[in-house]
C-alpha cells in the first residue's frame, strides 16, 4: 500500500514538472515590453495602486498621502476620467513595515493588476521590490520615499530628502553659518542625510559639522542628543527624523532657550501642514521645512484650487502638505496618460515620460516635471524650496532651486 502510493506520488511529480515547467520560466505577467495590452486598463477604467503607511509610526504622513490621491482621483473622475477612463485606486496599508511593503507591491501588481504604482511611500521597503517591478515593467510614478533614481520603471517627481538637505546646507552657508549640527535617525533618513553632507560639504569649505547625533527611530527620548548638540554650540541644526521627533527636538531646544534655526525635510517638518508644528506648539516658531510641493497656504492659484477640494475631503490630514504633494503627482500622472493617446503600452509610457524634458508637465503646485533618459533622467525634479513657520503660518523662504 505504502509503496504504491510512493510510486503514484513520483509519477505525479514528474508529470506536473514536465507539463508545467514552461509556465514558471518568467516572472512577468501579461505585460511585457511590446505593444501588448498592459494590465489594469480597460476601455472605461484605469486601476492605480499605492502602498502607504496608513497606520504605525508614519501614519500622519500616510493619511495625508492617501487624502491627496483620493482628492485627485475624485476630481479626475468627476471630469470624466483620463481619456474616458475612470481612475480606480487600490491603496494598501503597510504600517511602515518594510516587509509588508514588499508583500503589498506584489499584491498590487499580481492580484489587483494595477496599471501603475502612484506615489507609493512604503517606508524603506520599496528597494526590496525593484527587481520584481523590473520583471513586470510596472511604472512607479513618484515614489515619495525612499528614492532610487536608477530604475527604469521609477520616476522621481520631487526633490529627494538628500536634495532638500543639500539645498538647506547651501542656504545656511549663504547665511554665514559655519557650525552645523545634525540629528538623524539610523535608517534611510540618516542615509540620505549622510549623502547630502558628503555631496555638499566640499562645496562649502568653511562649514563644519560640530555634532552628528543618531536617534532611535520611533523613540521619544531625544534629550541626550539635544544635550550634546547644545553643548557643541552650533549655529544651525539639520534634522533627518520623523515629525514626532522634530517636534520633540524643537521643544527640548526651546525649553533650554536655544533659538538657532532648525531645518527638517518635507517629511519631517510636515512643511505646509501641522504634523510637526502642531505637536511642537510654540516651539515650532522659526522651523525651516524643505519644500517638495508649494506650501499649502499660499495664494498660488493651483494650490488654492487644491485647497478648495481638500476642504471637502472627509478623511484625516486632507489639508496637509502630504496631501498637496500626492494630489499633484496623480494630476501629473493623468496629464501624462492623456499625452499617451490611444497607445497605453508600457513602451509608449516610458517613451513619453522620458521625453518630458522637452515638454515638461507644469502644474504650478510642484516644480515642473521634466524626466529624461537614464542614468539621471528619471530624477525628474531636483529643485527644492524652503519654507519657514512664522506667526503660526508657513511662508516660502526660498523658491524652488536645485542644490549647488
Amino acid at each position, binding site marked *: *500500500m*505504502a509503496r504504491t*502510493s*510512493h510510486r503514484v*506520488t513520483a509519477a*505525479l*511529480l514528474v508529470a*506536473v514538472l514536465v507539463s*508545467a*515547467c514552461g*509556465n*514558471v*520560466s*518568467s*516572472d512577468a*505577467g501579461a505585460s511585457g515590453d511590446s505593444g501588448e495590452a498592459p494590465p489594469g486598463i480597460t476601455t472605461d477604467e484605469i486601476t492605480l495602486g499605492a502602498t502607504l503607511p*496608513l*497606520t504605525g509610526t508614519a501614519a500622519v504622513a500616510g493619511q495625508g498621502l492617501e487624502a491627496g490621491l483620493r482628492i485627485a482621483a475624485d476630481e479626475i473622475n468627476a471630469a470624466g476620467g483620463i481619456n474616458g477612463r475612470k481612475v480606480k485606486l487600490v491603496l*494598501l*496599508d503597510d*504600517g511602515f*513595515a*518594510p*516587509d*509588508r511593503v*514588499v*508583500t*503589498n507591491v*506584489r*499584491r498590487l*501588481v*499580481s*492580484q489587483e493588476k494595477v496599471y501603475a504604482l502612484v506615489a507609493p511611500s512604503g*517606508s*524603506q*521597503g520599496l*528597494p*526590496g*521590490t525593484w*527587481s*520584481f517591478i523590473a*520583471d513586470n515593467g510596472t511604472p512607479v510614478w513618484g515614489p515619495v520615499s525612499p528614492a532610487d533614481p536608477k530604475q527604469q520603471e521609477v520616476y522621481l517627481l520631487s526633490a529627494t530628502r538628500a536634495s532638500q538637505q543639500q539645498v538647506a546646507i547651501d542656504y545656511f552657508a549663504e547665511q554665514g553659518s559655519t557650525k552645523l549640527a545634525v540629528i538623524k*535617525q*539610523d*535608517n*534611510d533618513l*540618516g*542615509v540620505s542625510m549622510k549623502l547630502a553632507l558628503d555631496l555638499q560639504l566640499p562645496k562649502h569649505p568653511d562649514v563644519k559639522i560640530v555634532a552628528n547625533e543618531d536617534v532611535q*527611530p520611533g523613540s521619544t527620548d531625544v534629550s541626550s542628543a539635544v544635550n550634546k548638540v547644545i553643548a557643541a554650540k552650533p549655529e544651525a541644526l539639520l534634522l533627518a527624523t520623523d515629525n514626532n521627533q522634530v517636534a520633540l527636538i524643537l521643544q527640548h531646544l526651546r525649553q533650554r532657550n536655544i533659538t538657532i534655526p532648525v531645518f527638517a525635510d518635507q517629511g519631517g517638518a510636515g512643511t505646509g501642514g501641522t504634523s510637526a508644528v502642531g505637536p511642537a506648539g510654540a516651539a515650532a516658531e522659526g522651523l525651516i521645512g524643505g519644500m517638495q510641493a508649494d506650501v499649502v497656504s499660499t495664494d498660488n492659484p493651483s494650490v488654492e484650487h487644491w485647497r478648495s477640494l481638500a476642504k471637502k475631503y472627509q478623511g484625516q490630514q486632507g489639508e496637509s502638505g502630504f496631501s498637496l504633494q500626492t494630489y499633484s503627482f496623480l494630476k501629473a500622472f493623468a496629464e501624462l496618460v492623456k499625452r499617451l493617446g490611444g497607445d497605453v503600452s508600457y513602451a509608449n509610457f516610458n517613451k513619453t515620460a522620458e521625453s518630458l524634458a522637452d515638454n515638461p508637465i507644469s502644474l504650478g503646485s510642484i516644480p515642473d516635471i521634466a524626466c529624461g533618459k537614464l542614468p539621471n533622467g528619471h530624477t525628474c525634479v531636483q529643485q527644492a524650496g524652503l519654507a519657514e513657520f512664522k506667526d503660526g503660518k508657513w511662508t516660502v523662504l526660498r523658491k524652488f532651486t536645485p542644490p549647488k
Partner: protein
Amino acid sequence: MSEPGRATATTTHTEDPTMVTAGAEAVTEPSAHAVGRTKGLVAVVALLLLFAAPFVLNSYLLFVLNLTLVYAVATLGFNLLVGWSGQIGLAHAALFAIGAYGSAIAMEQGVPFLVTIPLVGLAAGGLAVLIGFPAIRLTGFFLAIATLALGMAIVELLKGARAVTGGGGGLNVEVFTLPGINGSASTYFVTLAVAAVAFFLVRRSLIGRFGRTLQAVRHLGQLSGSLGVSALRYRLIAFGLSGFIAAVAGSLYGQLQTFVFPAMFEMNLLVPMLVMVFVGGAGSHWGPLIGAAFAVVLIELFQDLGDLQAIAYGVVLMVAIAVLPGGLVSLFATFRDSRLVGRLLARRTASERSEVRA
C-alpha cells in the same frame, strides 16, 4: 517557590497532576500511530498540491504562500523551544535575522546560497546555545526577559555594524534561482524543499525519545526548578536546534524579501511569531503550519479594512485566546474527544487501549 528539599518531599507523597496528565496522553498516542499511514498519505498529497502551487497561483499568492512556509519553518523552531521544552526564549526573531543577514553576507563573499543555509544554521545554532546558557540559571519570565534583551541587542548590533550590514539602511540580497525557472518560483521551490525536510526531521525526532525527554524536562522544570545535568543539556539542545531552524528560515526569508532591514526583526516580527506558536498550539506537530497560515492570511485579509485593520488584528487575537486558550489545534482535539466522535471511534480505540494497557 519552595526550597528544593520540600518540593521533592511534596512530589513523593502526592498524586501529582502533571505527571498524571502526561501519562494519560501517553495512553492515547499509540492510536494516533495506527492512523499514521493515512496521515502519511495526506502529507504526500498536501506536498503535491504545494508543489503545484507556482503553476496555478499568481506572483502575489505564491509570495504569500512562500511567506507562510518560511514562517512555518521559523515557528517550527520556536515551537520546539517554547512548546516542547517549555522555555520562553525570545531571541528567536534575532536568530532569524542572523539567518537572513548571514546568508546574504556570505553570498556577497561568493558562497553559494544552498551552502549558506546550513552555515547560518550552524552559526545561529551555536549562538542560540550561548544565549540558552542563562537557561541554566533562569526560568520563566526571567529567561524571557533575558533572551528578549539579548535578541534586541543582536538586532542593535546588526544596525551598528554598518560596514557589513548596511546599518539601518538595509542590505540587498542576491537572489538564488534554479536554472530555467523564474525568481519567484525558484525561491518558492527551495523554501518548499527546506520546509518539507525540516518538518519531516523535526517530527521524526519529536515522536521519539527526544520529544518525550523534552516534555519530561519541561514538566520537571514546572515542578521544582532544580534540574539535573542531563536535563540542562536537553534545554540547551532545544535552544540550539531552535536557533538552527530559525536561521534556516531566516535565510529563506532574505531570498523572499530580496532586501533586509534590522527593523524587520524587532518586536513586529517577534509578536507574530509568538502568535503563530500559540495559535498553532504550543507543543503540537502541525501547529506551526496552521499558526503561520493564520497569521499571514489574517494580515492579508485585513488589508481591506483600512484604518480598522490594526484593531481587527488585536481583537481577533484576543478573541482567539479567550475562546481557544489551547490554540487552533485544540479545536481538533476537542472534536476528537467530543461524544459523537468518541462513540464512533469507541470500538476501535477501546481495543487499542486494552492492547496498550496489557
